[in-house]
């Protein structure tokens, strides 16, 4: 579904971390070109 798609990932520590989102998107075939997890506290 996400094959040949590039993705930018913004995660948040107290919601869903960037690496978790990355794992989901990569399993769907996306290429992650940027990933960041923010800590707002």
């Amino acid at each position: 579904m996400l094959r040949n798609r590039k993705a930018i990932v913004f995660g948040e520590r107290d919601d869903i971390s960037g690496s978790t989102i990355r794992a989901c998107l990569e399993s769907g075939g996306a290429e992650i070109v940027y990933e960041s997890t923010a800590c707002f506290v």
Partner: protein
Amino acid sequence: MSRFPVIKNFSYCLIHTPDLIRYGSKTRREITRDPDTEARIAPYLRSYSQAVCYPPNQVFVGNLTPDELTTLPRPWYTRRASEEQTELLRQGPFGEILNQETFYGLLKAADIMMPPLIMTDESNLENLREKLAAHPLCKDLVPDLQSSSSASLEGTDQSPATTPGGNVWPLQSGKTIWGFFQGDQRSEAKNDENLQANNLLENLCSKASGALALKWLCRREAINPEEIDFIISCGEEACGDRYQRGGGGMAKAMGQMCGCRNASGMDIKNFCAAPASSIITAAALVQAGIHQRVAVVGGGSLAKLGMKFQSFVQQEMPILDDCLGAMAFLVTADDGKSPCIRLSPGGIGTVPVKAGTSDEAVFRYYLLEPLARMGLTCTDIDRYAAELQNPEIMDFAGAGDVAQKNYRKIGAMAVRAGQLDKGDMASWISRIGMVGFAPTQGHIPSAMPYIGHAMTAMARGEIRRAMFLSRASLFLNRCTDLLDGVSFVLERNPRLPPIKKTG
């Protein structure tokens, strides 16, 4: 004697530092980028009275409970107090909300460098001495305020508009300048970015605010500081020079300032979870018989002052992240009264590397598993303290209510574990959770602000167990993508009379 060490006492302090907001990490960078930012901030700085009567701050020092805060309509920041009310509210049963000028006196007392980091003329030095002399817990520090060479002020731009970014920063209250802060001026500090004003002011703010909390701890417990035999600092500052940034030494620096002459100490780092890790370590040291009275101290974070200032200014409301937070805890062997830290085998919640970055895995490891190993379920805990950031700060900054997010996750984990019906989740969360009330000071709001309220509720027989869950953003170190979780259960002392069941 029961098997477990206790938290025998605690203290909580806030320091209202509106004129240090400019030296927070975010504000300083923005002012450097656009010097007009400083003028735009000025109209949104709160007065001391506004900060004192701010309901979340009142919860932090114990004049209100978290449950009472829940009943107060928002916005909270519009509350005002008279001069008389401010005087009454500036202290609470847990500690105090200190004013900025007295804190400058504390900072000066914390400055042991020669040449000094804080330069003052004789007139301002006398003013700082008067501030400390008027404070019952700080008057012993007056002799520490030594005169600095007036020559050191020569050539300094004394304008309040002096832009941070250089290496000499004004310490002011409104338009009044109380002194100047500078980096280490000695030749060995040349070109060492770790010893510039920004880093050293962060370190000194942590030392001075932590020392205030430690002084309050000794006063509340009515002990001589010399009776403390070990201190653990759990702040986030990376003290040290270019060869050992983050080396530590803050615990003994605070102890030295407070007269803890017989104490050794160390610093524990674990981002926001360091206070939880430190309390567990303190309990283990006591349990092992290595130390008898261990003080865990967390000083305030200058870097995080004004972290959300842009949102507040944009919405034309006061900058609410204007206070340094500080706290201290005394861990000892069981006294038959104080709440026990459940150091049962497996009872401490930790998150192994194999948990990865999944939130569900993290909660399983630091919530469900330690409870199971103690023979407990989620519903055996009366109150949970997770991240307790003030939602008014978080919401206006667009970051959402972090406390409630964590309570929903705790509820969801309890449901998934079959320990709670999904239909009961909302009402259960309202009973076991609470509204956040702590300033966004990193390690300060991470669960530990509830310890004081929990101990009070346990002493009154209102609750039996509280669980404290702290999280740490390890990924901020750029060396891993992991986060961490640390938890422990605090239990009403079993030697106290049983809680009478009501209803």
